[in-house]
Structure formats: structure tokens, C-alpha cells
């Protein structure tokens, strides 16, 4: 059956596929960085004990975690032009959507991370005269981040896989690039297989890294 396949299409399509992969990686990196920063702020707001901030943060996190990502991607892409009057490119729209969406998930991870640091550490920071932000920045968040690193990375692997959904709004990611070249060379199956292998290779190496980190953290503790 494989005799009908012609994988010779792969080298030909590599430059285009590479562009797609670059976009997928860029989208992942942006959504991860922005998502962790925004997520951490949401987690702090939720843990602050303030009624207004806490409610807003909880509402944001719970809402986004209850809506399918694909719907958020589509809504954002089609709704933004209605408000701003001009369409935003699919690539840019996806970056913003993913950052806002992933923030809700990173927020829950960071909340668990912050709660994993003992209350005494906050007091220790305050006791040497640190302000709230200094205590968070120098004492609590570095420890929360370290404790949660494997979970944050696992979430990032999921995020990387989910970036293939931008295909729905026509952003040229790895999957879209594979589809386009597959059509051009009339070898769609080969190209879908190839893109699957790339997704697999990246996710598998990352999950190996998570395993390694988990072991190291177990040693530190």
C-alpha cells in the first residue's frame, strides 16, 4: 500500500513547511509568555482577597475554561472587525486569542503554585520590609514557578497542539502549510503524515523534558 506514496514531495515542500512551523512556534511562544504573565496576574488577583478583583478574575478564568477554544478563535476573528471597523490578520488575531485563552489555564496553574508556597514565606518577606510586590516577585513567584514548571510545560505542549486550530481562520501554521503544499503537489496524504510526524517529534521531546524535570524536582524537595 505504501508503494503508492511518494515522500519525495517532502524535500520540495520543506521551505514552505518551515515557514508554517515557525509561525506555530511563534504563536506557542507568544501565548505561553503572555499567558503566563496575564495568568499570574489573574491568580494574584484571585488570591488577593479583594472582592472586586477576585470576582473579575474568577469570572474570567471560569468563563474561558468553559468555552471551546475553536469558538473563541472564530468569535475573536469575526467580531473584532465589527468593533474596530477593519479586519485584523488571521495570524495576529490568533496570537491575541491564544494569549487571552491560555491565560485562564496558566492562571489556575499559578494559583496552585502560589498556594504551594507556605504562608510563612510571605511573612518572611514582609518581615524584612519587603512590599507586597517585592515579596511576590522575589520570594513567592520564583518558588511557585519552580514548583509548577512541569505542569506549565505540559500545558504548553497542549497549547502547541491546539495551535493547529488556527487552521480554521486560515492562519498559515504548520498544518495549513502542509495542507497547501499537499494540494499543490497533489500529495495531501503524505503531507498530512509528515506534519503529524513533526507535531509528534516536538511534543514527544517536550514531554521527555517534563519527565526529566519531574525527577529533578523530586530530588530538590
Amino acid at each position, binding site marked *: 500500500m505504501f508503494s503508492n506514496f511518494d515522500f519525495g514531495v517532502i524535500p520540495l515542500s520543506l521551505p514552505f513547511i518551515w515557514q508554517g512551523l515557525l509561525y506555530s512556534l511563534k504563536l506557542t511562544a507568544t501565548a505561553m509568555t503572555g499567558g503566563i504573565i496575564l495568568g499570574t496576574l489573574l491568580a494574584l488577583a484571585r488570591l488577593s482577597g479583594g472582592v472586586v478583583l477576585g470576582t473579575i478574575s474568577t469570572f474570567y478564568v471560569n468563563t474561558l475554561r468553559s468555552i471551546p477554544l475553536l469558538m473563541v478563535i472564530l468569535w475573536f476573528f469575526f467580531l473584532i472587525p465589527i468593533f474596530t471597523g477593519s479586519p485584523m490578520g488571521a495570524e495576529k488575531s490568533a496570537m491575541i486569542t491564544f494569549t487571552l485563552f491560555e491565560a485562564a489555564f496558566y492562571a489556575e496553574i499559578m494559583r496552585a503554585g502560589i498556594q504551594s508556597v507556605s504562608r510563612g514565606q510571605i511573612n*518572611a518577606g514582609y518581615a*524584612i*520590609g519587603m512590599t507586597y510586590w517585592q515579596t511576590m516577585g*522575589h520570594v513567592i513567584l520564583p518558588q511557585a514557578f519552580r514548583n509548577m514548571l512541569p505542569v506549565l510545560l505540559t500545558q504548553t505542549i497542549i497549547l502547541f497542539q491546539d495551535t493547529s486550530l488556527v487552521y480554521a481562520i486560515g492562519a498559515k501554521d504548520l498544518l495549513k502549510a502542509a495542507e497547501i503544499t499537499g494540494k499543490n503537489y497533489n500529495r495531501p496524504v503524505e503531507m498530512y503524515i509528515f506534519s503529524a510526524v513533526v507535531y509528534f517529534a516536538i511534543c514527544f521531546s517536550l514531554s521527555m523534558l517534563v519527565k526529566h524535570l519531574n525527577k529533578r524536582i523530586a530530588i*530538590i524537595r
Partner: protein
Amino acid sequence: MIEINKVSKWYGSFQVLTDCTTQIAKGEVVVVCGPSGSGKSTLIKCVNGLEPIQQGNIAVNGTAINDPKTDLPKLRARVGMVFQHFELFPHMSIIKNLSIGQVKVLGRSEDEAHAKGMKLLERVGLKAHANKYPGEMSGGQQQRVAIARALSMDPICMLFDEPTSALDPEMINEVLDVMVELAHEGMTMMVVTHEMGFARKVANRVVFMDQGKIVEDAAKEEFFGQPRSERAQQFLSKILHH
């Protein structure tokens, strides 16, 4: 130096502190003791505003802790605190633990903070451990570092909350020795502890707490000679025969 005046505090509807009043003069060492749950930790945390109070007032060096206008971080920077579980920052080396407050809070240069940190490490006998992490040290060593960290901020007084109760018996003395030395140098100290040997050696006064109230506040000689309250007598006989 520390004035605690008619302080009451509630956790929800549960009253932890009732009408607590005592003063600690400059250079004085006051030991606070009492049964578990009597509010000792709560009281000492109120002194540097880690816990808010609902009634009464507390002043440190003339500055009211519970005045909303008070710059609490600034005041806390001058009040050293040592915790039962050390609370060193586990993700920082020992020397970083000693310099971070100096740099971020007092605005000293890295070099200056490092030099001061090393001097204090030498003083508590741990100079060789400067680049280790807290997790690599024994409890007694960690607590000495914690005292050094508090001293790195040049405190005007020191608060200790059961500094030796989480330690193995053979490590208690290395920590108490540092504290005794501090006391002899004239540091103003409020110490929650059940180490009556320490109290006999350096305390000026002993405060005995029970169920959120200061039941006894007496000069050391008086307290160990013949405590007035029955609760304090019972408590003393229990821990002295332990």
C-alpha cells in the same frame, strides 16, 4: 521601644487576644511563654503588623503600627523577626538570603550587602557555608542564618517566635548561644520560648499568656520565685519537670 496597649484581636468571632498590655524598654529582653494556642505567636506577629489588630494600639519606637498612615514595610525593615520554621528563602543561596533585603529594601549596593552578609555569617559561625542553599543545612544552621538575615537589616529590636522549638535537642544550644550574645550586646528582644534556661540567663521580664490574656507580667526573679497566678505555677512545674 515596644508598647502594647489594651490589644484585642479576633479571628472571625473567635477572640484570640483579650486586652493585652505590656511594654518592652530599650535594651530589655522579655520572654513570652504560655500553653499552646494561648496567642503568643499571634501577639508577636501583631507587633510588626503581620497580623492586624481590631482594638487597642501598638507602637514600635514611637510609631503606631495600626495607623493607616504608617509605612509598614519601612517600619518592619527595622524590626527583626525570627520564625519557628526559619523561613529562609529556599531558592536563594545563604549569602543571597542575607543580602536581598539590604539591596531591595535598604537600597545598599550588592558589594556592601555582600560584605555585611559575610561579616554576619562569620559572627554566627557559618562563613564557609555562604554559597550553600538552605536545604543543604541543618535546622540549627538555618536558624542561625535566619538570625543573621534579621541582623543584616540593622534592626532596632528583634522578635523571636519559638526559634528553637522545631530543632533537634542537640542543635538548640547553638541557636540559644547566638541569642544570648545578642542580649548581652543590649539588643531589645521579645522572645516567645519555653527555654526557661534562656529566660533565667538573660530575660529581664517574663510574660505568661493563657487563652489570649496576659496573665502574668513579672520580673524574672519574681516569676521563677513564686508566680502569682495558679495557671503560671502549673505551667512552670510542667515544663520544668519535663
